[in-house]
């Protein structure tokens, strides 16, 4: 538990992605099996323990700590599990070091009646950081800012094996991943995934640039709409049905409606959407499904999921990925003709002769559910990652609004000395009829390092109040904010939430009174 808890502790405080990768790869390099495998499982949400932890801890702590002192401590610390880890009256010395693997394997095989005494024994022998890590582990939610993708990237970094190869074997393996670590450390063969429903790394696109658009030959490309959902891979092989996100997370449990209907022997690529009849629902509706680990019957009915298919990777045992896109497309259409599973359709082709014609279509695309256009080379094989020159995305022009900077917050890591996170607002009429600003969004990117320095200076010179790391500034500076769309939100005072807001331009020249009003933003809501 010592090295695992030290790792979690560092990760929890480390904002930088690269630093996290270094901490993780050092851990994988220096920790023996099977502990590192269980750590990997814990970090990638692969461990579940069914135990009534809250109740057990409540009973244990009540017997050990004066309730008044516990209450005062809990109020100060702000988190019950952390308070218990810190307050537990134990020495943590003079015992055999407790291994992570021992904890995991013991809990997995223990009778529920044994948990209180096991937990007591462990809490007694661990130090405060280890106790904190133990409780986090048992709750099943580490929350140290490590995604499964990041953990796999660290494995790739440490082992010098391609990330795509690791992602491909990932879902066929289970904790403590002995085969995986044997392969990654050069002591074993690559685990075989033949015929398994495992994740095949997706082919991704590049944002097209104007000069590329000017030189591409329309005859070499096929255009499709870029649907505004979540890119997914759906697989049904060897009796396993799976739905994977773009980064290889298994999201099957959240979307039984689209997974269940998939016939045997296929791997498909498509866009996950919420669709009512033939209408694509706003992205917000899909978001509500994604955020739930298990889905209620009511939700299935009110927010029905759908996959709009882009590509086919396997049919039966045949790997179609080496075929040109145009061939795969034919296979996809033929396959769909035969099986036509409900809650799927094939994304249609957008016909065009010239780039000028395409540009017109692109500019006119304001319909809900369309994010822009995709351009795919007719002869592209299905390549993992983001290969150059094959697939282009051409996102429709962003929406723009002029908003006034209201609050600035210190960044983290490299930006910790800069006020780099901005909350901005638009005008509306206050209760007395006077115009007032209401916050509509927050962003910390879109500007250059040079601009960040200028903004930081401006904020320090125009602060009217400060609360911890946050400064309230005079409402004088206008940002032109770019965003993809805007939705209704009950969680925000303004009643709206923007998608991907970024600072497009800093309007040093524009008076704040001339910034936009809230109504301008609400008029852009597409629901």
């Amino acid at each position, binding site marked *: 538990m010592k090295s695992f808890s*030290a790792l979690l502790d*560092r990760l*929890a*405080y*480390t*904002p930088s992605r690269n*630093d996290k990768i*270094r*901490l993780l790869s*050092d851990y994988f390099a220096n920790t023996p099996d099977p502990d590192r495998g269980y750590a990997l499982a814990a970090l990638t949400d692969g461990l579940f323990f069914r135990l009534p932890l809250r109740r057990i801890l409540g009973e244990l702590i009540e017997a050990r*700590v*004066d309730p*008044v*002192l*516990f209450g*005062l*401590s809990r109020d*100060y*610390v*702000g*988190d019950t599990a*952390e*308070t218990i880890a*810190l*307050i537990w*009256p134990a020495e943590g010395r003079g015992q055999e070091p407790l291994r992570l693997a021992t904890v995991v394997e013991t809990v997995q095989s223990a009778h529920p009646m044994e948990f209180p005494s096991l937990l007591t024994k462990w809490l007694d022998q661990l*130090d*405060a950081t280890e106790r904190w890590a133990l409780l986090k582990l048992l709750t099943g939610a580490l929350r140290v800012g490590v995604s499964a993708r990041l953990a796999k990237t660290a494995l790739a970094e440490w082992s010098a094996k391609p990330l795509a190869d690791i992602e491909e074997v990932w879902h066929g393996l289970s904790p403590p991943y002995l085969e995986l670590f044997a392969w990654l450390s050069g002591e074993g063969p690559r685990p075989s995934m033949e015929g398994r429903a495992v994740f095949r790394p997706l082919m991704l696109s590049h944002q097209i640039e104007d000069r590329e658009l000017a030189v591409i030959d329309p005859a070499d490309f096929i255009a499709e709409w870029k649907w505004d959902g979540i890119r997914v891979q759906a697989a049904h092989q060897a009796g396993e049905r799976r739905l994977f996100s773009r980064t290889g997370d298994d999201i099957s449990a959240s979307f039984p409606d689209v997974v269940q209907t998939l016939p045997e022997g296929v791997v498909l690529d498509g866009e996950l959407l919420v669709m009512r009849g033939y209408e694509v629902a706003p992205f917000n509706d899909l978001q509500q499904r994604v955020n739930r680990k298990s889905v209620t019957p009511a939700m299935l009915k009110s927010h029905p999921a759908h996959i709009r298919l882009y590509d086919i990777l396997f049919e039966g045992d045949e790997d179609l990925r080496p075929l040109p896109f145009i061939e795969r497309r034919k296979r996809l259409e033929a396959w769909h003709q035969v099986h036509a599973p409900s809650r799927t359709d094939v994304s249609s082709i957008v016909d065009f002769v010239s780039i000028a014609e395409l540009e017109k279509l692109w500019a006119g695309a304001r319909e809900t559910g369309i994010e822009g256009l995709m351009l795919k080379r007719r002869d592209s094989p299905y390549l993992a990652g983001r290969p150059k020159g094959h697939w282009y995305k051409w996102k429709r022009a962003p929406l723009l609004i002029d908003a006034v900077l209201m609050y600035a917050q*210190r960044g*983290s*890591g*490299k930006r*910790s*000395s800069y006020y780099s996170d901005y909350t901005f607002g638009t005008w509306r009429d206050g209760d007395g009829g006077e115009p007032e600003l209401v916050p509509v969004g927050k962003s910390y990117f879109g500007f250059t390092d040079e601009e960040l320095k200028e903004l930081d200076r401006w904020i320090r010179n125009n602060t009217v109040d400060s609360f*911890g*790391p946050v400064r309230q500034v005079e409402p004088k500076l206008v940002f032109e904010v770019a965003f993809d769309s805007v939705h209704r939100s009950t969680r925000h005072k303004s009643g709206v939430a923007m998608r991907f807001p970024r600072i497009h331009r800093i309007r040093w020249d524009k008076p704040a009174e001339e910034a936009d009003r809230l109504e301008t933003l609400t008029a852009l809501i597409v629901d």
Partner: protein
Amino acid sequence: MRPDHFDSWLTVDRRGLYCRPGGFYVDPHGAVERAVISHGHSDHARPGHQHVLATKETLAVMRARLGSPAQRGTQALAYGKGLKIGDVAVTLIPAGHVLGSAQVLIEWKGVRAVVSGDYKRSADPTCPGFEITPCNLFITEATFALPVFQHGNAQDEVTKLLKSVAQFPDRAHAVGVYGLGKCQRLIALLRAAGYDHPIYLHGALQECCDLYESFGVTLGTLKPATGPKRDELTGQIVLAPPSAIADRWSRRLPDPITAFASGWMRVRARARQQGIELPLVISDHADWRELTETIAETGAEEVWVTHGREDALLHHIQSTGKRGRALALIGREDEDQ
């Protein structure tokens, strides 16, 4: 005034804690005629007193920080040497907090009261250790008086810092430390762990380090952090006041990891709130166990609590059958100095 009625001869007014039969204050907040000063931190050693009594180390700290420790006269008193002030005897006893820090023992008509000042029980190579003084009334600090505060071994935190320095050799480590005490203790702990590179200092920390060295505390090679090229600081440890590590001053450092050596770092929300990436739990104050054990060991029948989280400590004191009282002194900062 009755000796066994402590609050008849030790009183609290807006300037601080006053000993009536001796005619002096201990660590007064406002300027007074006579002050006994426990140690040199600015919330205890204020400017403007007419006469000041303290250890010679504390007087030196006050001279360095305030220019002059007193308007009219100073008197140095060595640890353990009694001094008569009227019918009162005053003795200064090591408190183990920082260089020169003292508990103030006040004896009057056979009754003994000890004002702890700030103190800690754990080892510190830069100052003499806390000594238990049996007394009737113990007046204690309570900065970390919650049972979640158990400071652990400071050397383990230094090991953590050195591991990070080895793991991120391409970055500087900017460690926030208070200038008097924490700074020198951390340097001494780093030296004890075998770290013999130069340690780089923010300009505000130099003077206290020089002072410690003049009293025989060796700190190894120290260099100013302002001046050298950015590259020279790569992979190095830089100490700076807490306010500087996350602000503009730190921009001169090569991609720094921000650390903070403080007892508050035990609580995650405190570290996160300040944007600390490497919290080091190193405190110059007593933790919960030290506070409660010290109270028991002094044998005091009554305990007064000066500043900090007095609710929890008073609850504990009352649960052990002693009399307890919160003094609510003004002007004490909620800082781990």
